């Protein structure tokens, strides 16, 4: 133990800081535990142990520097990534969102039918003498009255009830109607209550004054984990894919289902299901095209500028400041401004061109717009890095070539450019990887569109993989988190491969130790 080393002031500061952190985490852990969030409570508790252990002993000096960063990274980056990988193995979509016990409860609640003659009664909601909620029902046809609570039904003689102006019983001995304000306050609770009637039938309130007769037709058998429809005799069993399905007809499933492990099916779908594969392939091709064209145009334009301004011409400083502006303005603002400028009726682009082009309704115009906007956003970056790199290339090379009689053009293509590419390759790769996932641009400029929503198509003409995945997970009518997670993992593998290649090129890894 090494609680008291170092200067007293530093030690006191350390003890105070660490204690505050532990106290906050401890409080959170306790409330997480009481709220039933065991996994989060465990994570918090482990963090506490790690903090106390690292900062109050001398077990590892590097860990003293790392720990806060590690805790944040694990909590908000690593865990979500692992969770995404887990989700990709599940049937996890609209209709299969909840856990199995929740789904069973819902299926049973939905597995009721009204009796055949659609019987309804006029009722008064009230309490029995023991405080239990009950209904005082009036049966017009039979001219009888009864009180029904959760487990019994008692006939009341017509002489004992008090009727209102509509001939509906409102009070009876041992029964007191609820006052209106109490009734209103219990609204949601009342509609879920079941009041006893004959056999398997029970009464359910429809509003405050009418009750209908229902019966449970789906019966659950816990031993075989199956549901039986007692009217038709159909048996529904867990199909292993998150639904109870009719054993004679696998298409006939009870909804809602639950999220169930289906292992690699989401991944298999990417290749085998044409409804998933075809849009995905189209989106993938556009993603690569978009990222490639973006890097190419940005780099070419940036390099051209760098070459043009690679000489102390008049006004170079002013040019430079203006040319950096697109890069300095928050991209989110400029994307929204561009979106307005491409407006068909009112936009500045059409006004300038004197045309009425529907930029975001035609796939090719939309794609061109995306490239142009991204060129605007990104050329200053390549201008900056290219001019920096141009200065890093020794002038001797081109001078020597010039003496040997090379033309400026030859010098550029055969000496400057290859050298420049060698320096800038890692940045070009990083830029490719960044644009591969340039969500904000696509989402805020075109929203991925145009897309044929009427045909139920989710993939738009300018959708890149990441915006398409977002659309699958959050955007469309059928939200499929399982499939979206599987695509995410695939994108991750692609981007990681590209970036690792870039890193290897730049030799960052060699400098590690």
């Amino acid at each position, binding site marked *: 133990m090494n609680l008291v080393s170092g200067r007293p002031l530093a030690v006191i500061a350390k003890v105070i800081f660490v204690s505050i952190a532990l106290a906050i985490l401890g409080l*959170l852990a306790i409330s997480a535990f009481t*709220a039933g*969030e065991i996994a989060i409570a465990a994570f918090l508790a482990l963090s506490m142990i790690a903090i106390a252990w690292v900062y109050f002993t001398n077990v590892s*000096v*590097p860990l003293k520097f*790392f720990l806060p*960063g*590690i805790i944040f990274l694990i*909590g*908000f*980056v*690593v*865990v979500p*990534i692992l*969770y*995404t990988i887990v*989700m990709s193995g599940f049937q996890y979509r609209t209709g299969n969102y909840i856990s199995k016990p929740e789904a069973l409860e819902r299926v049973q609640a939905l597995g009721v039918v009204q009796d055949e003659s659609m019987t309804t009664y006029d009722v008064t909601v009230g309490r029995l003498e023991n405080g239990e909620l009950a209904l005082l029902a009036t049966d017009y046809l039979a001219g009888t009255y009864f009180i029904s609570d959760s487990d019994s039904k008692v006939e009341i003689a017509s002489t004992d009830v008090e009727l209102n102006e509509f001939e509906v019983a409102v009070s009876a001995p041992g029964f007191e109607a609820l006052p209106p304000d109490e009734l209103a306050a219990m609204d949601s609770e009342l509609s879920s209550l079941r009041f006893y009637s004959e056999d398997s039938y029970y009464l359910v309130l429809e509003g405050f004054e009418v009750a209908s007769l229902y019966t449970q037709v789906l019966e659950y058998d816990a031993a075989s984990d199956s549901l039986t429809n007692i009217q038709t005799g159909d048996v529904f069993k867990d199909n292993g894919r998150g639904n109870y399905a009719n054993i004679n007809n696998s298409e006939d499933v009870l909804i809602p289902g639950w999220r169930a492990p289906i292992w690699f099916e989401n991944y298999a779908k990417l290749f085998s299901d044409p409804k998933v594969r075809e849009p995905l392939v189209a989106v993938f091709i556009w993603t690569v095209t978009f990222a490639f064209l973006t890097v190419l145009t940005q780099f070419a*334009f940036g390099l051209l*500028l760098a070459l*043009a*301004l690679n*000489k102390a*011409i008049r*006004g170079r400083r002013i040019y430079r400041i203006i040319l*950096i*502006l*697109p890069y300095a*303005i*928050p*991209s*989110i*603002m*400029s994307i*929204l401004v561009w979106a*307005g400028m491409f*407006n068909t009726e*009112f*936009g*500045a682009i059409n*006004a*300038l061109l004197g045309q009425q082009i529907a930029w975001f309704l035609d796939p090719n115009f939309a794609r061109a717009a995306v490239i142009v906007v991204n060129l*605007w956003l990104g050329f*200053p*970056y390549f201008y900056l*890095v290219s001019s920096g790199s141009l200065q890093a290339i020794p002038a001797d090379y081109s001078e020597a070539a010039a003496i040997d009689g090379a033309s400026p053009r030859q010098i550029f293509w055969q000496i400057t450019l290859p050298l420049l590419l060698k320096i800038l390759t*890692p*940045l070009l790769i990083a830029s490719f990887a*960044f644009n591969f996932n340039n*969500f*904000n641009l696509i989402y*805020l400029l075109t929203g991925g569109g145009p897309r044929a929503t009427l045909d139920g198509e989710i993939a738009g003409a300018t959708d890149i993989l990441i915006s398409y995945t*977002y659309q699958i*997970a959050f955007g469309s009518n059928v939200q499929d988190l399982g499939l979206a997670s599987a695509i*995410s993992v695939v*994108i*991750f593998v692609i*981007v*990681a491969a590209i970036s690792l290649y870039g890193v290897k090129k730049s030799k960052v890894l060699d400098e*590690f*130790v």
Partner: protein
Amino acid sequence: MTKWLRDNLWRHAVALGAVGFALFPIYMVVISSLNPTGSLQVTSFVPNEISFINYTQLFTDPTIPFMTWMWNSLYIAGLVSIVSVIIGAASAFAFSRLRFKGKKLGLQTLLLVQMFPAILALAAVFVIMERVYNFAPEIGLGTQAGLMLVYLGGSMGVNIWLLKGFVDSIPLELDEAAKIDGASPMQIYWQIFIPLAAPVLAVVTLLTFIGTFNEYILARLFLVEMETRTVAVGLQQFIGGQFSTNWGAFAAGSIIASIPIVVIFLSLQKYIVAGLTAGSVKG
């Protein structure tokens, strides 16, 4: 004269063309913000009437809490960038200067983790913060505090990388000398490293600030209440519905929102460019 033309004319032509391209949207947004009709429609490229009504609307219209949005953005980005650099600097120092087992593995893991596109883990982050809300509503889904926690986690990987790059460029001799004199790693960190790295830390703080300021989708998902929104989400939602009618106010708002970032960027140009070549791409 002809030699001058041959050597320099094309340079000016290229530069002027690029300047036109760069300034066109900026010019459009400026004249839109001064256009009293507040509409997107371009009637003329030269304003025939200048008014500040769009700016006054931003500050007086009670349905547009622009100042609150602006403050939210500055506050969230400010706090996140400072805390993130404090935490990140310590990790970067350890990666750059200390020797320990598993250093290479740690850096590789960091690199890999950082490549997972944050937006794709969105669903998971959402579910986790939903659960946090169940027991600690103050830092769960829908709160700025929760959003800041997520930003902190997300910025960690990039910042550690970026800071490590900078730290590597600080000469080793100084801390070697201190080590020989018997200084502990803690003393080296606080008394040698931090003072030397202060300008670098400031630059990375500002880069994080810009990155956080620019973040859109998490802020959009997290901040549902009008009063808690960041300026980007607020303005985007604001033009979302009535694109053409709110355009003037949007233009004015985006200009005001951009000014702090542009000022920071231009004044620190030199350092930021150094950071860019070290391998970061602005978001």
